[in-house]
């Protein structure tokens, strides 16, 4: 009895968690304009996305493109910055190290709205014209701490003598970094990159405050504006389903690879 209740609780929790996504996914296969109406099974909305025949179409495609470009650049730059910072922080000692680690954690718990508004004020103060560049800079600034956080444990696991061993065998510091340190840190860097990419992908608040008035739209700001105009564009349903599926598949691949490499080591 106790077991059944526990089981039921878990299932209820999972249903509540996944119901909205499943709901969107199901209704992505019907053409009805309003969400919740079922007008028969159809791939029409999927076709519309790929053929560009979306209502108000070009705007959505541009938003998707902007989102991906921004996410990619922000993730790449913050992976680089975050890795270098992690190495630096790791080699600090005592109180200095603790202070910097603490400072690194603050941006992550800081509410997005505050980050957004303060960046907005900073850019205004510096007379930066806001647009693509400011959004990318803003995204780099809030993604980097996550990379630091995912690279640090890898540094901790590393044999502290490994870098010196490379120098000892005749590698210059740059060669030692490239041939020994980076390969060791790669798993942390990859997960940091993915984390940064997804953080950038679904950011709304920071983008909203730093995109300026040139009409730059990312997916989140586009959907927000779209929903305010009167109902969601129906094509957003298959789009969200696709994004969710891609992320799910990526996650499964990563997990399987991790499990395999763990097995190999044993």
């Amino acid at each position: 009895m106790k077991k059944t209740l526990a089981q039921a609780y878990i299932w209820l929790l999972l249903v509540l968690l996944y119901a909205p996504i499943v709901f969107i996914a199901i209704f992505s296969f019907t053409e009805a304009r309003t969400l919740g109406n079922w007008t028969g099974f159809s791939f029409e909305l999927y076709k519309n996305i790929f053929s560009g025949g979306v209502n108000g179409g070009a705007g959505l495609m541009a938003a998707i493109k902007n989102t991906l470009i921004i996410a990619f650049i922000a993730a790449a730059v913050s992976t680089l910055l975050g890795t270098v910072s992690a190495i630096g922080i790791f080699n600090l000692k005592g109180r200095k190290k603790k202070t910097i680690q603490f400072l690194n954690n603050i941006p992550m718990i800081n509410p997005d709205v505050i980050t957004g508004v303060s960046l907005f004020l900073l850019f205004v103060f510096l007379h930066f014209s806001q647009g693509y560049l400011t959004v990318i800079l803003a995204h780099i600034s809030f993604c980097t701490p996550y990379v630091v956080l995912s690279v640090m444990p890898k540094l901790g696991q590393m044999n502290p003598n490994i870098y010196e061993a490379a120098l000892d065998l005749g590698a210059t510091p740059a060669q030692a970094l490239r041939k020994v340190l980076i390969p060791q840190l790669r798993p942390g860097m990859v997960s940091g990159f993915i984390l940064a990419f997804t953080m950038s992908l679904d950011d709304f608040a920071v983008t909203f405050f730093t995109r300026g008035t040139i009409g730059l739209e990312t997916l989140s700001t586009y959907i927000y504006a779209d929903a305010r105009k009167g109902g969601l564009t129906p094509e957003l349903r298959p789009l969200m389903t696709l994004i969710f599926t891609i992320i799910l598949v990526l996650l499964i691949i990563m997990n399987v690879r991790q499990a395999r490499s763990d097995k190999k080591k044993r």
Partner: protein
Amino acid sequence: MSEKNNIIIDIEHLSKSFGDHQVLKDISLYIRKGEFVTLLGPSGCGKTTLLRMIAGFLQPDEGKIMMEWDSRNGKTEFRDVAGIPPHQRPLNTVFQRYALFPHLDVYDNIAFGLKLQGVPKDEIDTRVRKVLKLVSMSDYEDRDVESLSGGQQQRVAIARAIVNKPKVLLLDEPLAALDLKMRQDMQIELKEMHQKLGITFIYVTHDQSEALTLSDTVVVMNEGKIQQIGTPIDIYNEPVNSFVADFIGESNILNGTMIQDRKVNFIGHDFDCVDEGFGENVPVDVVIRPEDVYLGYELEGAQFSGKVNSCVFKGVHYEMYVETDSGNELQIQDYDAFEPGRTVQMLIHPDDIQVMKKERVENVIDCTVIDDTHIEMFGEEFECAPIGKEGTSAKAHIQFSKVDLMDHEEEGNASGEVWFILYKGNHYHLTVKTESGEHLYVDTNDIWDKGDLVGIKILPEDITVEIDDEQEK
């Protein structure tokens, strides 16, 4: 200078501090080509720091390291290596805990250095195979290094270093992580490898038996200073001070008095010995190895007698503690067992008595005078015998036996930690490190453990203060 030939590394007056803590103090040492040199000492003695400076990972504060160097024009010269980064030095290191590259397999780990040098591929192949064979790992080239056992990883680490044909191989406690049996096997292999390769080995360890087994020369270090340099036999048979005697092997270290040349008094008896030149009636430390005391219920030529306190079988020999007629306890090893409680007679041969100059006969501590009966030392205030002289900086003289150690730190005027314990047959000679970082030496009959926190109490009449001369002028 004539004996200083064939030298590959010459270290002169090297000092190094980390913050306020001086780790190496004026180290001078030379290493001959092809020699197996061991830097031996307890943890924190500076041996690893010295090795890291030779490798180039640390820069000396003072002094220099000279190294044999092949210059571009093919000449071999001797040069100061200050400022030369590790990757340009003609030596390789076997690190503690191996430090293999986990993302590379055995072959690529070993080929790492050769690839960086741009050695042609087929030469890399032959050289890697050759060292793999030397370390008996021929079938393992494609293996992931993390799938290897500790001993195998150690072999790969050695192979990775020697494949580059360094002039000197540095080994930083390479066997510390292996279990005893494995360690003994690897010791023999290392020794063979050293003979086969003819490379100079500099080996760091805290394990005295390892040092004695492997080395041509042992450098005993403690507290950042070289205590003694010598062959394993010299170090064992003729330790220069009580630290070396205690650290290397087992020993009885006793207070004695050198009566005249070749005559020394300890445990209440006069003994013939072979030492000369100490002067007459000079206090000395005497070292007797446990296996050098001859025991018998009836012993011809016996010099003294005692009562057996305990007798334990140790495999090859029995280990006994015998209380002598003068109340000193001696540790004795013998192939025969002697019953506890029985009276035995003992004999020590003159050449088995090692006499050492005492490093100190009393505490001499820098202090500051507060008033005629008060001084500040170890950062605390102490009452002392009336000084009767003006001056501020002075030295306090305190006999070892006049220092009282208290269980609770608050009970004393100052506090400290028991740092080093030496049993001297009928009392303990302790080194207490005060909170201010100074050393205070104490003779006591109480039993303390290393690391105990103690209060330090000294009666005023036992502190004799001597004003520094320079100030009087």
